[in-house]
């Protein structure tokens, strides 16, 4: 039986996440079917969910207007894994400190949008991330990235310059950076197949 992975596809780097999930599935010997979600009715069939990078104002607007927001909440309440990157993390957070983004409160962190600056300040750097399959630093790509400035019950998995940039809260993993932009699948493996706080029904 194959695992059904959904990528919230209203806007952002959707195909990059779809490819990264397939690579992570291959590495774990799991067969994964990926669905792109631009309307309601598909999330309930998914074992795993990814919220991609993009523009958080656009994504939050469309997940609400398309009726996907409550379905994503239901997915997380059922303990199924969600991996949110950059704009996805902002939308998944409890508070983005900005009325232009209606957050989903799926992960107990507050974030600050574009805290690393504009595109000219975007950067890539090797980053140590707790819980990966090995100790090699992860090639992290930060694009107009948010920082996590208040960590409630979430566990910090990585920090950059003393700011948390990767967190886990139960079934939800969020990163300020974009693991989907590099061929390294370890963070997707961690979020979807190695997260003890999450439950993937078809894997049991």
């Amino acid at each position, binding site marked *: 039986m194959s695992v059904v992975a959904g990528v919230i*596809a*209203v*806007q*952002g*780097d*959707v*195909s*990059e996440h779809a490819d990264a999930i397939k690579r992570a599935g291959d590495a774990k010997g799991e067969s994964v079917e990926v669905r792109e979600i*631009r*309307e309601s009715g598909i999330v309930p069939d998914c074992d795993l969910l990814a919220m991609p*990078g*993009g*523009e958080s*104002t*656009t994504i939050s*607007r*469309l997940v609400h*207007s*398309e009726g996907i927001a409550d379905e994503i909440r239901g997915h997380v309440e059922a303990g199924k894994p969600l991996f949110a990157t*950059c*704009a996805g993390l902002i939308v998944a957070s409890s508070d983005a400190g*900005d009325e*232009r983004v209606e957050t989903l409160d799926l992960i107990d962190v507050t974030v600050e*949008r*574009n805290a690393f600056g*504009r*595109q*000219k*300040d*975007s*950067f*890539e*750097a*090797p*980053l*140590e991330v*707790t819980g990966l399959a090995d100790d090699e630093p992860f090639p992290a*790509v930060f*694009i*107009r990235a948010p920082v996590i400035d208040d960590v409630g019950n979430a*566990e*910090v*998995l*990585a*920090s*950059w*310059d*003393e700011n948390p940039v990767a967190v886990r809260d139960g079934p939800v993993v969020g990163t300020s950076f*974009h693991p989907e*932009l*590099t061929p390294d699948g370890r963070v997707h493996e961690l979020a979807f197949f190695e997260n003890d706080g999450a439950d993937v029904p078809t894997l049991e």
Partner: protein
Amino acid sequence: MTEKTDLEELRRGTDLIKRGFARMQKGGVIMDVVNPEQARIAEEAGAVAVMSLEAVPADIRKRGGVARMADPADVEEIVNEVSIPVMGKSRIGHTKEAQILETVGVDMIDESEVLTPADNDYHIDKRDFTAPFVCGARNLGEALRRIGEGAAMIRTKGEAGTGDVNQAVYHQRTIKGEIRKIEGMTHEEREAFAREIEAPAELVHETAEMGRLPVVNFAAGGIATPADAALMMHHECDGIFVGSGIFGAENPPEMAEAIVEATNNWDDPETLTEISKNLGKSMKGDANVDLPEDEQMQGRGV
């Protein structure tokens, strides 16, 4: 957990970061705006970015004369107004306008045929910039030359300021058709084709292997309605630029929101129908079949 970071190994302005920024725009609508009020309307409607310029292409056409980069103070005001990325247009080959835009802090520079070209032979060497660039193209040769110069995003040229989607469709079909053609070619045929279209051979091979352009490919030039945006998504564009189509319409906020929703629902005719109802008048436009060649912008910068 670890606090260890190695600031020495931090890198900016790499191809991965420039192309990555463009990827974050996918599935979105980038709207032309000429002042902070319009930028705010675009952001509230769900635009993924705004393109800041002095006048929309339809007005540039009407006005005539030399079209240049916008006043950097005006661009700065827009940068300060919205939280979404702000892009700015430089003239083709005008390295100094591009440097000024980069200094102001725009997130992407459009080296655009909508402005009067500054250089008849050469485009900007975009590899030297930290800011990513988007460039227009009518065919695969133009697209791959621009990527070879460092463009992180390609958009169809279409025919800007006309409100007629015809040329955007033609340019997108041309690029996709050429990609399908090289997919079926042998290595040596691709080499010969690269010489024929005057494109870097390694990019022809890369495109053929990927079955698409190696960078994000948006639609631009004449998109005026939600259905136009959906049509360009149907033609496998990664996202949409709308120029005069929003603020040239009767109800800009409604039109902006409808085009954002249509870009997400391009393959759902029923939703598209609802989105398209009661939007008021679209921009009047000018059928570009009637435009004499010297009034066309698409021939600039090949």
